[in-house]
């Protein structure tokens, strides 16, 4: 297959057939003030559980039947780089021996600049990693501080060149925007500095205030909350700069050069099948969505009892799958393929309103959200259209 643009519909359609695996590594040096993910805070719980956890992942992989050769493996977190390259490599090996890997498999991890050394990079490549997503978050020291990050902007540059030197085929940078402490100038500089490092891929996430986080408490205490309009501005400034720098938006938060769209991501948005291992991990296969237990004690206890650590399973019929394809595809820049349900939505009063307001359009036979920052507003209405409505 020729190298397709990251936002190509053909690529998204192909991704639907990909099989991937997600492995959740919950350990973090400390919890970031905005984070509400299932993590294990080492500053609270120590590292004593790491070895047990890696062993548990191995056991859990053994509990899951075949899905076919994997096109993508993604280590997310938490902070996957809190595990040693050897530990991560052992999990890759386990996946390889259990399911087999495609020749062009993408093996990716999220990494924290604090954990990154040339040595780490080289070892990760040697155990099979092809892609790294560096948690840069910002190049502004003040913003990094309020986000609770301990690195500085030059660390990021060092990480990128180190990853390149080690032979990573794809290097991505993650940024967070829209904190009250961030100014427009600061954001423009962050974007410029990030693009200057010529990453293959960038993910930009609007800061979200989740209940129960330190950030939520700070805002209750009077700190400036993120402003929707400012976030929309920042998003547009980024998108323009990224496009100029050769990175195409292929999903609400993701931009990449041709050939560098994240396979695991694309497969998820295309409603493909994926396995999930580890704390709070989710999978989607054979008409089921399952999720794992989100607390480490419960998760480990299940594994010890030789049980899959499931917290819930949702069964999907053909209509549910069509609905998810619509819901997820609307996040993609290429849109969701036309379907009976999509047509039904387009013909509904809300669908017509969105078309009229220029929020959505039909482009090359796909329904596309033209204003990606309004995707949830569209999806909310698309979800409430049922087959009975048309």
């Amino acid at each position: 297959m020729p190298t397709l643009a990251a936002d190509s519909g053909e690529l998204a359609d192909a991704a639907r057939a990909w099989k991937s695996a997600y492995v959740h590594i919950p350990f973090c040096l400390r919890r970031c003030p905005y984070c509400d993910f299932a993590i294990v805070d080492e500053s609270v719980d120590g590292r004593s559980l790491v070895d047990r956890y890696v062993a548990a992942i191995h056991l859990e992989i053994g509990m899951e039947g075949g899905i076919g050769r994997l096109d993508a493996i993604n280590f997310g977190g938490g902070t996957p780089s809190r595990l040693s390259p050897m530990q991560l490599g052992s999990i890759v090996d386990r996946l390889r021996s259990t399911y087999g890997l495609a020749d062009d498999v993408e093996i990716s991890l999220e990494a924290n600049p604090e954990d990154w050394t040339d040595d780490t990079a080289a070892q990760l490549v040697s155990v099979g990693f092809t892609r790294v997503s560096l948690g840069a978050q910002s190049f502004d020291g003040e913003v990094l501080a309020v986000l609770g990050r301990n690195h500085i902007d030059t660390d990021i540059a060092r990480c990128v060149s180190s990853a390149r030197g080690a032979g990573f085929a794809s290097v991505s940078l993650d940024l967070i925007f829209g904190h009250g402490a961030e100014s427009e100038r600061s954001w423009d500089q962050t974007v410029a500095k990030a693009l200057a490092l010529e990453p293959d891929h960038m993910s930009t996430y609007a800061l979200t205030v989740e209940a129960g986080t330190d950030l939520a408490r700070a805002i209750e205490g009077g700190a400036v909350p993120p402003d929707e309009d400012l976030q929309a501005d920042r998003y547009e400034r980024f998108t323009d700069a990224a496009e100029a720098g050769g990175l195409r938006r292929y999903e609400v938060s993701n931009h990449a050069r041709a050939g560098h769209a994240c396979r695991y991501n694309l497969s998820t948005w295309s409603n493909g099948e994926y396995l999930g291992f580890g704390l709070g991990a989710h999978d989607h296969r054979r008409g089921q969505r399952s999720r794992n237990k989100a607390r480490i004690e419960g998760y480990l206890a299940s594994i010890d009892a030789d049980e899959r650590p499931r917290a819930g399973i949702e069964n999907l019929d053909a209509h549910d799958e069509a609905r998810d394809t619509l819901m997820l595809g609307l996040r993609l820049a290429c849109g969701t393929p036309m379907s009976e349900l999509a047509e039904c939505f387009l013909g509904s009063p809300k669908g017509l309103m969105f078309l009229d307001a220029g929020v959505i359009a039909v482009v090359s036979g796909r329904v596309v959200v033209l204003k990606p920052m309004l995707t949830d507003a569209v999806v909310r209405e698309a979800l409430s259209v049922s087959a009975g409505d048309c």
Partner: protein
Amino acid sequence: MDQSRIRNFSIIAHIDHGKSTLADRLLERTGAISERDMRAQLLDEMDLERERGITIKANAVRIDYLANDGHTYELNLIDTPGHVDFTYEVSRSLEACEGALLLVDASQGVEAQTLANAYLAIESGLEIIPVINKIDLPAADPDRVAAEIAGILGGAPEDIIAVSAKSGAGIDELLEAIVGHLPAPEGKPDDPLRALVFDSYYDTYRGVVSLVRVVDGALSAGDAIRFMATNEDLVADEVGVRRPMIEPTGRLGAGEAGYLITGVKDIDLIRVGDTVMHVDRPAFTPLAGYAEPKPMVFSGLFPTDGDDFERLREALDKLRLNDSSLVYQAETSRALGFGFRCGFLGLLHMEIVRERLEREYDLDLVATAPSVEYVANLTDGKRVIVHSPQDLPDPAHISSIEEPYVKVMIITPSEYIGTVMELVQSKRGEMGDMTYLSPERVELHYIIPLAEIVFDFFDQLKSRTRGYASLDYEPEDYRASNLVRVDILLNSQPVDAFSTIVHKDRAQTYGRAMVKRLRELIPRQMFDVPIQAAVGSRIISRETIKARRKDVTAKCYGGDITRKRKLLERQKEGKKRMKMVGSVEVPQEAFVAALTIGDE
């Protein structure tokens, strides 16, 4: 029962001054109800009455009391509503009594409502026993309150009975005073039957149950009876009393109060205030004072989901079985679809009806801002009654518009006189006289357009006097005013449900405030939404709700599609209470925005 041993009385009290607790205590002390069966607010049967601590429907309970003189007396406690909306019901209940307990909170003093009802009782010739309640409260000031009551009613402050309905202190003394001070009824047992209907309610099994007071003659089960006002002949299937459980007695003699069941299902046939007589021995003069209930406040009620229109009609029909003062007719709004224009006795009545429709009939409703009944005099000499701003004829054809005025009584601590005057002035009020009840409290009289009261007058009065002022009003007359209709346009389309009739001098201010308030209440949409206020074709104010720019969780959610989907579905569910007006989603509270624009 010998009439000399009968005492019919009601309790007049302001909300929260302890009327229902006192009734509970009287029932308990006389053994009408055992402590085991006691529950608070025994006579208030509706959930709403209990929750709000108010009485909406009247009730009558017979209590046997063995007095210190060795005789057993029959006490009929006639429980009455205590709110300005139900003045007519109160007056009917008072007609059924010879005496009334004027119950006043020892820490609060006399309130306008209580005073208005006390005057009503005195005008009806009732003997009043003033009672000070809650004397055990730390903030109680019984001496001051006693002086205040004595100042209003005459008599000596030290003669006033002090009780604690909560602890039961003073209850024995009160019972003796009821027997000793209140007059016995003086009906003529041998005359033709005349009985007053002082309330009615609908029972699913029994049909209409009427509360009656026999004035002359006697009413027995099986009698052929006639209702004078409706000229309806029926048979008294059952008569009896409540103790407080229903107890058929077969007969109610002169001076007694009790219930009457005829098996009739149509509440309109038995009107509150009507006189019951025998068909074969008719009385010639009805008892005084039957009047048709007159709705004062009007509002549109629309189902949020248009498919619920028929359910709303059925619910209103059922509610009316119990509330003949509720009137309604179908109405169509371009913005809100099919609904009903409803007439209410007042704001509380309106609130109660709406709440009962939503709770007891599981309806989700949009209510429009309340309005009053205007009269438009047309250039061709016709008079048009206008219940809804959207029905106001073209101003070109109107020579004048009249609006209802009310007589308002306000009782306030004297330090707030200035504040109250200022408020009344801003509401186009005319000052009447002013009486000091005591050096600290004053009674003020005004004439104010009802439309101003219906808006936010009461809330503002309360907030400006820190809750200390109280209010009562009664209809005065219709007067011509310089009124205009302010229309609101949403996305350039007029929204009839937002139209309001206001005084011309206030149109600009009102329009500006309304538009601003709507901008706050209506969430941002996918496109810019202009909001305009207009008088005729002239735009007097404009604001724009800017299009929403971000509505997305732009972070990775790790393959947790189920959770994300459920979150979006929940958010969508939360939007269901929005009403689509054109392509704009409007929250229900926006339709009563006019009530919450405050002083701007």
